[in-house]
């Protein structure tokens, strides 16, 4: 399925701008789930997401200027406040009221973790999923990436929780095709997604912890979480051997075939032991390896699990498809009937299904 075909995805929060790039002086165009919007900062710097076009003559409000927190249309100078109400029509005779139809529809927006987030559906929460490390003391938190990718957001999220690609896709950084097997791992379904704990023995990741030696091997625990269907968290714990870190990766669906890859990281180490520039350079190389592959993927994402082949190590991405299928069928709240979600063909037939998560066959 294509991302705009899944109505339930409209109810999630998406990062639509970096806080540091949304100046108080101008408006910008935001495209989300195939529709256009205008983003600007109203009084007090509060970000506002509103319609893309002026209700008067359809001029693009992305070309509007912002004065004292009011959006000023470039064509006739109509001014809109942060609630979307038109507060000034320069051509109107003094004393005449502004017509109530002269207003912009607005959508909920919050600013967290260095990003501006918006929801253009019916939000179930008052903001994006919590980034626990960002709310805890002692972590250095920064936006690593906020960049357009020519790939479906579903593909980007899927890749974030995928356990079987690193050995190949990341062989230029930390992957090793001769160690492609993934050890058995625990997977549990959570209220809004899933959580898995995958023990790893990896080489090449030194720069993430501040050690430029890429030859060194580490044993680590990778905790992978799908926080909701478009947001992921990966926590890497080194048991004291090196500083831990966490990635919050998500994809803002621009339209069916493009998205914005958004990643926030939290580092446990201080700058002198875990230099951010070294961390970022390495992350950049890894991310570009993913991007090359993802930008070749089809925008049609199969949520029907029988359409693909799944291995035991693919339990995270298999569960992702099942949860998407439940959202599509409107059964997101309850357990699916076995007939709703056909059992996939599992190659090798050795998969141990997560007990709490699976319906009785």
């Amino acid at each position, binding site marked *: 399925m294509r991302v705009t075909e899944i109505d339930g995805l409209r109810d999630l929060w998406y990062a639509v701008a970096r806080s540091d790039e949304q100046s108080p002086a101008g408006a910008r165009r935001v495209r989300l789930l195939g529709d256009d919007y205008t983003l600007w900062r109203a009084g007090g710097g509060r970000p506002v997401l509103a319609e*893309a*076009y002026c*209700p*008067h*003559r*359809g*001029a*693009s409000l*992305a*070309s509007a200027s912002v004065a004292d927190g009011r959006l000023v249309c*470039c*064509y*006739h*100078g109509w001014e809109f406040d942060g609630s979307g109400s038109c507060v000034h*029509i*320069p*051509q*109107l*005779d*003094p004393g*005449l009221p502004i*017509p109530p*139809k*002269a207003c912009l529809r607005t959508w909920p927006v919050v600013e967290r973790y260095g990003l501006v987030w918006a929801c253009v559906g019916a939000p179930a929460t008052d903001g994006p999923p919590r980034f626990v490390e960002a709310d805890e003391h002692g972590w250095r938190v920064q936006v690593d990436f906020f960049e357009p990718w020519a790939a479906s957001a579903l593909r980007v999220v899927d890749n974030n929780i995928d356990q079987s690609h690193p050995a190949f896709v990341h062989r230029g950084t930390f992957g090793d095709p001769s160690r492609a097997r993934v050890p058995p791992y625990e997977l549990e379904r959570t209220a809004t997604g899933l959580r898995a704990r995958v023990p790893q023995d990896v080489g090449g990741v030194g720069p993430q912890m501040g050690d430029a030696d890429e030859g060194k091997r580490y044993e680590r625990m990778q905790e992978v979480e799908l926080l909701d269907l478009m947001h992921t968290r990966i926590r890497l714990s080194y048991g004291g051997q090196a500083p831990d870190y966490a990635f919050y990766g998500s994809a803002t669906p621009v339209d069916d075939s493009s998205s914005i890859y958004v990643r926030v990281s939290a580092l446990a180490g201080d700058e002198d032991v875990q230099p951010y520039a070294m961390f970022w350079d390495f992350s950049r190389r890894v991310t570009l390896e993913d991007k090359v592959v993802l930008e070749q993927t089809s925008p049609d994402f199969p949520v029907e699990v029988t359409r693909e082949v799944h291995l035991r190590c693919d339990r995270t991405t298999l569960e992702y498809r099942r949860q998407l299928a439940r959202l599509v069928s409107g059964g997101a709240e309850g357990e699916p009937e076995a007939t709703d979600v056909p059992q996939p063909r599992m190659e090798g037939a050795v998969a141990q299904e997560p007990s709490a998560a699976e319906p009785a066959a």
Partner: protein
Amino acid sequence: MSDDYGLAGYWHPVGWAAEVGDRPSEVLLLGERVVVWRDANGGVVAAIDRCPHRGTALSLGQVDERGCLVCPYHGWRFDAAGSCVAMPQLAHDAPVPSRARLTMLCCEERSGLVWVCLSDPVAEIPNFPELADPGYRHVRCAPYRWLTSAERMVENFTDFGHLGYLHDGLLGSSDDLTVPAHRVEQAGGELHYMISMQVPNTNERFAVTDVQGRRGIQTNRYVLTLPYAIHLQCTYEDTGAHRTLFFVVQPHGDGSCTGFCYQSRDFDLDGDDEPYARFQELLAEQDRIVVESQMPADVPLGPSGELHLPFDRVAVAYRRAMAGLLERVAVSSATEGQTTS
């Protein structure tokens, strides 16, 4: 052509006459590819730009010394009436099949422009009376090719609310944007309206206004000839001098349009034309950026499409008239269909 059907009965400009020379010109009008060339007498002729033989664009070909259009593919020759007069591949003495004809279109040269009508004309070519008046000096502006509909371009030309805002200091002033009262009257296929307003003296930047002080009062009289022509006469109340704009738009039918504009004056007759051309170019560029952003690109003709305030009277009247024009033609073509079938 579906939606544009009603527009086919009107005359539309397709280019400056001076630019149709020895070679055929290719133009796009309401989605039709049209070829324009000059016959042996120098008159302009137009046809659907398609050779009846293999559908080749005749505009890629030549015009011969007898004013015949020569197809670039097989060398067939067509005279100014559209008849094929030579097929080089045909055996000697064999008659040219009578079906080898071009679809000819109504074509006229008027006011320095070439005008084409795609079906039987239902109206006259819009008039530009000052062009024959020796008291005027004329400046031809560069054609404006914009990525929007002809209706948006026409509406912008006659939109009062944006003058002092988008063209602050040039056509008005942002410190007073209220629009003086005005009335719009429809007379047949024309809208007539008039407005008096304050205009800034731009002469330090562009020596184009006949205003003495910092600001002057200017009275604008408009005749909008449906669907896409505007004659605007500006009178400077201080001196009684006139500046006239004659503006017509070619609807390409592919989401773009081209505006042709004359700027004429009965003052500064020995002056330099360049500031007038530059002034209009700057205004057009300020407009283009905004108008190309307008969504939807086709003007909503229904009454509830966009928001209209008292100062948007002209747009409301224009949309109503255009809706009527298209509906009337749609109705009459439907009844024709019934009687002939």
